[in-house]
């Protein structure tokens, strides 16, 4: 090999091949739109609020021939000492958890029944589950205002049916937020459960019947444990975004629905306290890291085809 060839090989080493490009593009995307923005948010969370443009102090300053690094931990101590924030986190997790459980309770039977349909009926049923997502998320949430309002569709029907005399106050209560979250996130529960349940080998159930299990026992001992990965996936796909949900509690939940997304919004836009808002976001992400890791592990297992 001549010297020039060697040099050519030398610089070609740094030009990514097709394979590397295919893998590289999503990583580049994540770097640009997740890692770098997150690092910026992280940086801001360690600064102080300032009436300036941008409205926070610099962390590193060069003053009098010296680098001054000012890592302000005040935002984080505020988060953990001010009960308002702690309560907001707890309330967010509670609302997300309850809505996720409700979604599971509604979504599991749906996914189960759909997975037992004939293949053509299955496709139609899954289409119907996904179809509402073709409309804007905002419009669907807005539509619920029309349903749940004091003179909305629901109250008018109930009054027309003579079931109630005065309209029920549902809109602007936590109940409305629950309804909204369950409604919006149901497809994210049904989809992974369906993909899991549709793969269930029917002969395993027959084997269970054959060995003396009644249908409900076979469900508890075979179907339910074997759909565990689907349950975990659905649970995480609903739970993780629901914790940070802003639009639904804002539009349906009223002032009584305390969620961290709304705290973040008000710190950022109303109080213009970017550093504190950033700290709120960072802590939320760390909190969600645990369920995200659980989700990844179950996905990994599902891919490897290992069970339990």
């Amino acid at each position, binding site marked *: 090999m001549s010297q020039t060839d060697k040099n050519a090989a030398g610089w070609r080493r740094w030009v990514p091949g097709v394979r590397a490009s295919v893998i590289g593009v999503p990583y580049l995307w994540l770097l640009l739109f997740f890692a770098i923005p997150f690092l910026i948010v992280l940086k801001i969370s360690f600064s102080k609020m300032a009436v300036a443009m941008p409205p926070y102090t610099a962390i590193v300053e060069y003053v009098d021939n010296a680098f001054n690094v000012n890592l302000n931990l005040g935002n984080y101590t505020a988060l953990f000492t001010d009960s308002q924030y702690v309560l907001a986190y707890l309330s967010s997790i509670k609302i997300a958890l309850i809505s996720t459980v409700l979604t599971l309770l509604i979504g599991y039977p749906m996914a189960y029944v759909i997975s037992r349909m004939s293949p053509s009926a299955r496709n139609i049923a899954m289409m119907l589950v996904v179809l509402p997502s073709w409309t804007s998320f905002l419009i669907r949430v807005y539509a619920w205002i029309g349903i749940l309002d004091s003179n909305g569709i629901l109250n008018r029907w109930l009054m027309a049916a003579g079931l109630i005399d005065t309209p029920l106050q549902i809109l602007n209560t936590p109940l409305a937020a629950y309804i909204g979250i369950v409604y919006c996130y149901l497809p994210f529960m049904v989809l992974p459960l369906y993909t899991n349940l549709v793969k269930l*080998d029917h*002969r*395993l159930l*027959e*084997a*269970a*019947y*054959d*060995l*003396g*299990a*009644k249908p409900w*026992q076979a469900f508890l*001992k*075979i179907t339910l*444990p*074997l759909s565990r990965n689907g349950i975990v996936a659905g649970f995480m796909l609903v739970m993780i975004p629901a914790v940070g949900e802003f639009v639904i509690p804002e539009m349906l939940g009223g002032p009584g629905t305390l969620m961290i997304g709304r705290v973040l919004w008000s710190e950022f836009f109303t109080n213009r306290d970017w550093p504190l808002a950033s700290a709120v976001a960072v802590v939320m992400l760390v909190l969600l890291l645990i369920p995200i890791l659980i989700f990844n592990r179950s996905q990994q297992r599902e891919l490897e085809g*290992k*069970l*339990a």
Partner: protein
Amino acid sequence: MPVDAKPDIRNDAIALNSEPGYLSIRDLRKEFDGFVAVDDVNLDVRKGEIFALLGGSGSGKSTLLRCLAGFETPTKGSILLDGQPITALPPYERPINMMFQSYALFPHMTVEQNIAFGLKQDGMAKDAITRRVGEMLELVQLEKLGKRKPHQLSGGQQQRVALARSLAKGPKLLLLDEPMGALDKKLRSKMQLELVNIIEQLGVTCVMVTHDQEEAMTMATRIAVMDQGWIQQIGKPDDIYEQPANRFVASFIGSVNLFEGVIDEDLPEYVTVRTADFPAPIYVGHGITGYEGQPVAFALRPEKVHIAKDEPEGETNKAFGVVEDIAYFGSHSVYHVRLPSGAKILSNFANMKRWDSDGITWNDEVWVSWDDNDGVVLTS
């Protein structure tokens, strides 16, 4: 009806069939959306017997087995087990267990938990379950693998677990659905005998379904050959092979030379069959009454056909032809001999010598012949 050289065995078989069985199936019929999968099945299985349902796909054998297990409800007819009607019982109330095709082991449970599943359903005490599971593992020689998950086992080991699971409850009837279907050929013949040993050791009555005639012949005490939802013949493996009831059974089991003809002479001690394939009528050394002038088929197994270069002395049934093809199988070769009439006859020739220099080869002129009692006249 089959024509029989040995009437005593035939009568014996009839006596066995009419005796009410441990498992007794009466007038069973199963329809799916107007399609009849199983029709007019009457079957008696004796206690301790390994009974095989043999047939191709769509023969109704699997549907019949599923009716026994309780996964399908018969459209008509009844099933009695040990004197008890079970036709209306759901699968979980039947004293019947099944070893599924490809085993259907619970993937999320260990070997022990799989075997214990049925015992737990019965509400057996914990220590009794442990003891029983231990016995079962010992029976199938998997004592060391009790804590493994099914996916950590080989195909043969999975089959043993499936067998142990289906035997754990001590069922009155064991069902085997294509028991060797998921194993490779070498392992198959080993497991066939092992399975039979275990089943006979426990004395459990067993009905198996298979499409593999060798498997049915090796494992079963009796075989029911099924086609298009009907039972074509019930009998011991050698009965079915040597005395097929009809053209279907004759050609389904093993290979056969079938010649269509008519009964020429019909006498108590012999019949002759006239065919277009042979110059002389075929002489059959046993009687068949009431079929004179009727169309019949003459069935002759290839291994019963002798092949030689010289004209055989003293044989009545012989023909002259040319070797058209030779299929070499190692242990034996099959010679395809074309007769002057255009008909083809197959002859098996055991390769008893390593190198047969003056052996018969392609385009040789040969004589084929068979003994008077080596063929069967089929009337249906």
